[in-house]
Structures are given as C-alpha cells and as structure tokens.
C-alpha cells in the first residue's frame, strides 16, 4: 500500500492531506500518478499483508504511527481499490480479500475516533459490472443482482461500509469496464489485445462478438476521484454512490474495429464463448455523474496504445 502526503489548494484554501491507497493496481496506480503529477507530494510505500490477520494489525499500527506524526486537522482519504480477487475468482480466493477489507474498515473506524477534527473519508471501489452483471440499461431504479463470487464480494464490501461508517465520510465508486495501461499492473482485455497485436500474436477473446460492455478510461476515473478528495465540501453522506460509466454500450466488435484502425493492421483473433462471460451489460447514460468527464472511446484506446508502445516497445 502507499501513503501519499501533499498540500491541496482548492479555492485558495490549502489543506494538508494524506491519501492511503490500498491496492496498487490499474486504478490505484493511476490515482497515485495523478496526485504526483498535480501536487508536490511525498510517497511512502508500506507493507500490508493480504493474507495474515495478525500481520495486518501490525502493518495498520505502523500506518497509524505515521499518521499521528502529522499535524492535527489533517484530512485523510483511504482508498480501497484492491482487487486481487479478479472477475473470475472463486469463493475461496475472495475470503482473504474480505478479511483484509474488514481490517482496513476497522482501522478507518478507529482512526476516525482517535482523530477528531480531521475529515476522514473512505473511498470504496466497487464494481458496476460485478453488481449488475447481465443487466441492460441499468438505471437508478435497478437493483444489484450479482451472478458470481466477485459480484457478491463487492456487494458485501458496500454493505459493510454502509453499516460501519458512523464517524467517517464515505464514497462508493461503481466503475464499469475499466481500460487503460499502466506498467506493472494487471493487463486488461484491451491492453492485452493491443499488446499481442503489436507483436503480431494471436488473441483469444473470452466473449462473443456482440457482447456489450460499458468502457471507461482509467485516467477519467483517477481525475474524478482526485476531484472528490480535493473538494471536501462536496461530500454528501446521503448520496455518495457514483457510477463511473460512459452510458454507451460498446460491442467487442466495435472495439476491434477501432483497434484495427489505430494499429493500421489486421488483428488475428478468435472468440472463445464462455457462457458466463457473454452476457451484455449496459448502463443508462443518466447515471454518469455530472462532473465525470468521459474520454471518447477512440481517443482513450489511442492513449492506451501510445502508453503501451512507450513502455514496452
């Protein structure tokens, strides 16, 4: 996990902030990079055990010590974007993640009791795809109906947060299919297609040609989250679930067309029809938060391609 300290300057008010990021994957790293590019910041890497509860408590105590060294009234944002248990994970593999999440949630609760005068906000990255898998035109009126362990995990994490957030603010983000490329993070579907295609390798896609998904660019997400971290006054405890979606369903076929145009060559691919991954998933465009800026898909894919090229080729 990473601790980032920086001074945010919002509307001529300077706040000293600490951001704790649990999970340095695609989204976590993107948030970290964005903070570093926008603010003069100090980043510390600390250990956090993902599978040993005893060690977790020791690690969290170390984090508390660092926070206590800071001046009073500092704003603290804890971001949970850990996702060791991916979309295809089994029930057994998500148990560790549930335990880690509970430990961190307890840690934030304790912190909020001990750090009166500080604004403490917990940011949970849930998953729109996991909660509403197989549902189309998902709207405010739709109910989460997970179909796989990953979805149940996200639902459980949201419920635990709603039950335990007595003394701290919280924001739940429900991103749909996130794409983008950051080195040393898990490579997603789109980056994988691009990576293999640049090398003229064959790509096997685990979905049908017409499978609909809602794609969002990772940097749009990190910009939105930083906006929330910096604009503390915006946080409303009663309406703080954000769907980070584009509102435009896109088929894999459309993605492949755009990627072939970007690459300017044919992509060698086939579809592997795993029944559980061919369900469509789309979101009503009214769910898009008003200040969430969506990069157009073709531009986002082009950026992903350029990032891949600059880091790997």
């Amino acid at each position, binding site marked *: 996990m990473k601790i980032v300290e920086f001074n945010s300057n919002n509307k001529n008010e300077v706040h000293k902030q600490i951001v704790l990021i649990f999970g340095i994957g695609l989204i976590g790293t993107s948030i970290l990079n964005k903070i570093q590019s926008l603010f003069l910041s100090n980043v510390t890497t600390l250990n956090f055990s993902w599978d040993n509860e005893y060690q977790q408590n020791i690690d969290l105590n170390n984090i508390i010590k660092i926070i206590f060294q800071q001046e009073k009234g500092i704003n603290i944002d804890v971001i949970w974007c850990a996702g060791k248990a991916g979309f295809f994970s089994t029930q057994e593999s998500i148990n560790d993640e549930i335990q880690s999440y509970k430990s961190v949630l307890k840690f934030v609760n304790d912190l909020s009791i001990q750090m009166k005068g500080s604004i403490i906000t917990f940011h949970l990255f849930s998953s729109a795809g996991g909660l509403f898998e197989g549902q189309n035109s998902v709207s405010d009126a739709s109910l989460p109906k997970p179909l796989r362990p990953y979805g149940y995990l996200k639902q459980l994490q949201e419920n635990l947060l709603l039950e335990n957030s007595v003394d701290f603010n919280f924001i739940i983000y429900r991103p749909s299919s996130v794409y983008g490329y950051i080195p040393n993070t898990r490579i997603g579907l789109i980056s994988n297609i691009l990576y293999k295609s640049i090398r003229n390798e064959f790509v096997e896609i685990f979905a049908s040609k017409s499978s609909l998904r809602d794609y969002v660019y990772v940097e749009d997400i990190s910009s939105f989250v930083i906006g929330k971290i910096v604009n503390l006054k915006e946080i409303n405890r009663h309406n703080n679930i954000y769907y980070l979606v584009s*509102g435009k369903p896109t*088929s894999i*076929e459309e993605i492949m067309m755009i990627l072939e145009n970007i690459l300017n060559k044919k992509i060698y691919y086939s579809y592997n029809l795993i029944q559980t991954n061919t369900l469509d998933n789309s979101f009503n465009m009214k769910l898009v938060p008003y200040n969430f800026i969506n990069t157009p898909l073709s531009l986002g894919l082009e950026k992903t391609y350029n990032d891949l090229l600059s880091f790997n080729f």
Partner: protein
Amino acid sequence: MSDKIILSIVIPVYSGEQFLLKLFNRINELRNRWLEDNAPIEIRELIFVDDNSIDNSSVILADLCINNIWVNCLKMSKNFGQHPASIAGILHTSGNWVVTLDEDLQHPPEKIELMLYKAISQDLDIVYASPLNGPHGKISRDLTSVLFKKFMVLLTGDSNIPLYNSFRLIRGDIARSASSVCSHDTYLDVSFSWFTKAIGKYELELNDLRSENGQKSGYSFLKLFSHARKLLLSTQVRIYRLFALLGVLLFAFGVLYSGYIFVNEFLHPGKYGSRGWPSLIISTMIFGATSIILLSIVLEYISLITLKIQGKPVFYVINRNMSNEIKKYFKSKYENS
C-alpha cells in the same frame, strides 16, 4: 434473468417540435400497455438524437429526458444528417431489437408489435415498413421515388433497395454491428444487408403529415441525388461488369474482323482501296477493348477495397433463438384468432 424482449427505439430529430410530444405520448402508451398486459416485450430505452435541430426541439427533448428515466437524448455537435444520427443512436442502444423511426409521426409506433411478430414468426433480422400508399403525398414524388429505386436495383444489383425505409425493426446485434462498421459515406441500409439477407417488409399506410399540412416535405431532388450517391458508393456497382463484357465482345469482334480482312486481302489483293483504313479500325477496336477490360479490372479492385474500408464483414454469426414466452404471446394474440 428476464426472458422479455428488450426494445430500443431511436429517433433522429431535426425539426420536429410540433410532433415530439405526440410521438412520445404514443410510444409511452405502447410501453405502458405492454407493461400492464405483462407482455414479454419491453421498451427499455427511447433515444432521441438531436441532430443540431433548427427549432425548439432541444428544449422539448431536454424536458422529456429529465422527466422519464427511460428516455435519453444525444446532442450532435453539428447537423450530420439522418443516417449518421441514426447510427449514433443505434450505437447507444442495448436492446435485443432496435426500432428506428422518423420524428414527424409518419411512422406509427403502434405497428412495432406487428413488425416484431413478423420478424419472430418468419425468422427475419430486419423488417422494413412498406407503404401501401404513396407516402410522400404527391404522385410525382412517389413515382420518382419508385423509379429511382428501380434504377438503383438495376445499377447495383441489390434487390433489397425498394424495401429501404427509415421505419425499420432490426435485430439488436446486427443493428449495432452494421452501425459500428459504417464510415461517413456508407448507406446505413446497405450496411445492414451485408450482415443479413433475412429481410422482410410489413405493409402499412404511411402518411407524410408535413406534406399533407402544406409544410415543406423532407423529400427533395437534392436528397434523392445524395441518396443515389451514397448507395452507389456503398454497393458494388455492377454496371462496370457490363462494360467489361462490352470490352470482351469488342475485342473478339476486332480479332474476327481483322481475320476477315486478312483473308480477304489474301484472296482478293487490292480489294480495300484506301490503304491503312482496315488496320486503323482494327487497332482502334482491339486497343479500345483492351483499355475497357483493364479499366473494368481496376474498377473491380477499387470496389473491393472500398467495400473493405466500408467494413463489409467476411462472415457474421447470429443467434435467432427466441424464448418460448414470446412465441406463446404472439401465438395467443395473432394465431388463435
């Protein structure tokens, strides 16, 4: 998982302020009727595409959009035209079936159910509304339209052209796939026909209210010309193959004629008084024919490249399975009576 058929409706809007509310109400009535009847069909989304409208349509659409969760509006950055607006709308749908219709009440939304019945009962992928009457309100306009379509069939060899109509019901996968491969000059309906030949028509009365009310009709010679241009750019123009055939015939005739002259000159020396005339005719004929043949080959190559750029697929897989619930619904409603 629900077995309901999900419908998405796409409506491009340019100057429809006087029709939009009425159109919305009629679609809403249909939607509510299906919900009340617990029918296995649901209109999940209605997408208005504001093609940089020139009247008060934007305000009306914004109001409809705010007050109805299932209504969404897309605002085009400039006036792109009906087909690009339809493409933009279709690419925002997620329904099993997509319906496109005009803003001006020319297309009765109440007929969507019958179009869907036709599609499902006959395993069709696209059903076009086919006007029983002349839809443009004037005999001259309707006649021009019919002749134009017949001429285009002759020119392109695409027998579906007479069916093309902006009131259409399309299988969702095909609608989105075809829309995603369209380039800016692709004729949308031609693109649909690359993905399926299971195309049918549903006959009904269509009325151009604008024309009937003495307003300017959306139909004009310039539009007809623009449609012809797009159609020709999107289809393989078969007529150059006729030119190729002409070239081959000319070449053959040139060879035969030269043989005839050669034999005549051999048997009856001095028969052709003006020296050089036969060789001039023969060389013109043979070289002209060769040029025509080569030109046809070049055109064939260009045609292939154009179709590839336009996104014509090598193959397309479709799932036409329908739930028993919907079959039962249609059977009880239309086949038992």
